[in-house]
C-alpha cells in the first residue's frame, strides 16, 4: 500500500500523460504536460516528508532533528520554475502554430513528416 500522496502524484502524472496521448488539441496536450509536471513536483516533495516534523526553518523551538528534508523542496522550487518556463515557451509556439495553420489540431499540424 502506498501513501495517498504518492497515489495523488502518480495519478496526476498519468492523467497528464493521458491528455497528451488522447487529446488532439495542442493546448490540451500542453495542459496535460503541465499537470504532469505538477504531479512530479508533488512526488518529490512527498519523498522528502518525514512524519511529525515541521518545515525546515530553524527558528526557535525547531532544531535540526525536528525538520523535514530541505533538499527535495529546493529541487521542487527549481522544477516549478523550469515548468513555467517550458509552458510559456510552448504556448508561444502554439500561438505561432495557430497563426500559420489556422488550427490547433495536431492531426492537421503535420507538414513535416516522412
Amino acid at each position: 500500500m502506498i501513501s495517498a500522496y504518492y497515489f495523488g502524484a502518480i495519478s496526476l502524472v498519468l492523467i497528464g500523460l493521458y491528455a497528451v496521448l488522447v487529446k488532439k488539441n495542442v493546448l490540451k496536450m500542453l495542459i496535460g504536460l503541465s499537470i504532469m509536471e505538477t504531479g512530479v513536483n508533488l512526488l518529490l516533495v512527498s519523498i522528502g516528508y518525514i512524519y511529525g516534523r515541521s518545515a525546515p526553518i530553524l527558528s526557535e523551538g525547531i532544531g535540526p532533528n525536528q525538520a523535514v528534508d530541505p533538499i527535495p523542496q529546493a529541487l521542487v522550487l527549481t522544477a516549478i520554475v523550469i515548468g513555467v518556463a517550458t509552458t510559456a515557451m510552448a504556448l508561444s509556439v502554439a500561438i505561432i502554430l495557430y497563426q500559420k495553420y489556422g488550427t490547433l489540431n495536431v492531426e492537421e499540424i503535420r507538414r513535416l513528416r516522412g
Partner: protein
Amino acid sequence: MNLLMVMLFAPLIAGFLAWLLDFKVIREVIGIIGASIPIGVLAYYYSTVTSESITYSLTVGGFTLGFHLTMLTWYFAVIASIVGIAMAFGMASTSKSSYDWLFALISFTGVLGVFLSSDFVGFFLFWELMTFGSFMMVLKRNRHESLKYFVLSIIGAYSMLVAIGIIYAKTGALDFNTVQKALRLDAMVGSISRGETALIYTLFLITFGVKAGAVPLHVWAPGAYSENDQSYTAFFSGALSKAGVYGFVLLYILMGAKLYTALGVFNNHLVFAYILAWIGAITVVVASFLAVLQEDIRKLFAYSSVGQVGYILLGLGIGTGLGFAGALFHVLSHAIFKSLFWLVTAAIILRTGKTRFEDLGGLAEKMPITFTMGLIAVLSLAGIPPMAGFASKWLLYEAAISAHMPLVAGAIFLGSGLAFAYVVRFLYAVWFGQRPSDLDDVKEAPLPLLIGMVILAIPNLVFGIAPGLVTGYFNRLFGDTIVGGNYFRLVTPTGTYNALLVTVILIFGLSIAGLIYIYGAKTRKIPVINTYQSGNPVTEEYNLSMRKNFYRPLAEALGFWLKYSWDRFYERLANLTEDFADWLREGFYNGNAQSYSWYLTIVLLILALWGVL
C-alpha cells in the same frame, strides 16, 4: 622509409601529384613513373624473397598494420605491377583527365596493399582503398553501373568486416600469422562452432566473390568493366579482380584446416573447396554463354573476364596442389592476356570511337601492330599453344581430371569452346572483312598504348614458350615438386606438355603454310562486299553476319534461361527495399506529435512490463 613502403605508396603519391600538377605531359610522366616503381622494387627483391620473407609494420590508430613480401605475395604483386605499368602507358594515350590518374593510381596502391598486408586491418583498409579508386572511375561515367558496383562492394566490404570481427572476437588477433595458428589450433580443439565457421566462410565468400565477380555476385562486373576508361579496365579486370582470388587463397591458408574439420568432406572432396569449385564452374559456363551473345566489344570482354576468373576459382576449388598451380598460373596468364585485350580495345575505341561489332571491320590493315597484339591475346585466351593461356588451362584441366571431377573438367572444356566462339568473332568482325567506309582514315594506335601492349604481349609469349619458369617458382613456393619438367616441359601425373616442341612444330608448320600461301596459291585481291547471302537481299530483321547477331540462333535456343537474369532480380530487390524504406518512413515518422508521444508511452510500457512481470 622502407623500400616496401616506397613501392606501396609510390602510385598513390604519383596519383596525387598528377592530380595537382594537372599539365598535359607532366601528368602522364608522373603517372608512368609512379606506376613503374613497384615493378622495379619487386625485381630488386626477387632474390631476397625466394629465401626469406620481408616484413614491415606501421602503427595507425592503435592498430598495427603489418606488411609482408613472401613468395606468394610477391607473385601476386608482380602481376599487379606488370598490369599496372601497362595501364599507365595505356592511360597516357586514352585518358585526358587528372581525375582518372588520381583514382586509377589510388586503386593501384590499394591492390598492392591488399597483396602485401599481413593483417586484417591493413587488408581491409587497402581493400576499401582499391574499391574506392575503382568505384570513382566508374562513377564518373555511368551512375547506374557505379551504383551497382558500389552497393555490391559495400556489401562485400561489410561482410568482410563482420567476418574479421568474428575472427577477432574468437582468436583475439588480427594479424595473419596469429590467426592462422589460432585457427589451426582450433581445428583440433573445436571451440568455434560449426555454424560460426560456416558463417565466417559465407561472409568471406561474399566478399571475395563480389570482387572476383563470381556468379551470382557478378552483376556489377560487365557494366563496371565496360563503362570505364578501357586502359583502366585492363587493370580493373586484370589485377583488381585478382584481389578476390587472392582472398580465396588467403582463406585457404588461414582457415583451411578449420574449414576442413568443421565442414567435413563430400565425395572425397573438401566441402568448402567443392562449393568453390562449383561456383567457379557455374561462373565459367554462365559468363561464357553470355559473352558469346554480346554485340559490344567491351561487354564481350567483360563477360569473358568474369568467366576466366571462374576458371581460377575452379582451380582453387579443386583443392589439390596441381589445381593450385593451375589456378595461380591462370591468374598470371589471365592478367596478361585479358589486360592486353583491354588495351587493344582501348586502341580500337580511341581510334574509331566505335564499340559495336556491326560498326567495325577490316582494321587489320590500318592498325597492324595492334592487330598482332590482339592476335597474341586471342591465341592466349582461346588456349592455343604456345601461349601462356594454354599452359595454365592445360594445368587446370589436368588437375580436374586427376582430382576426379569430370563435371568440372567438362565446364572447363565447354568454357574453352565458348571462348573460342567469341574470340573468333572478335578476330573476324574487328580485323577482317569489309571495312565500313567511315573507318578508312583510322591510324595506328599511339606509341604509349603500343608500349603498354608490348609490355603485356612479351610475357604471354615468354611464359607460353617457357611455362616452366612459372611452375618452377610454384614448386619453390609450395616447397614440393607439383609440376615437374624443365623450363619448356611440364610434367604432371597424367600428362606432359612440351611447349618448346609445340612451338617449333607450330612455327615450322606455319612457315610451310605461309610459303604455300605466298608462292603456291594463285591469289587475287578483290574488294570485299557483302555477298555471302547467296544473292538474297539481307533483311534487317534476320541479319546474321559475323558482325551482327551471329549467335542469335544460340540466343533463341537459350531463350528460356535468358529470361532469368540476376541483374533484374537484384533490381527488383532494390526496388522492394526502397518501397520498404518509404513505407517505414511514412509509417513511423508520420508527422503527428501525438503518435510520437504514443511511441514514448509504449517504451515506458515495455519498461513497465519488464519490471512488473
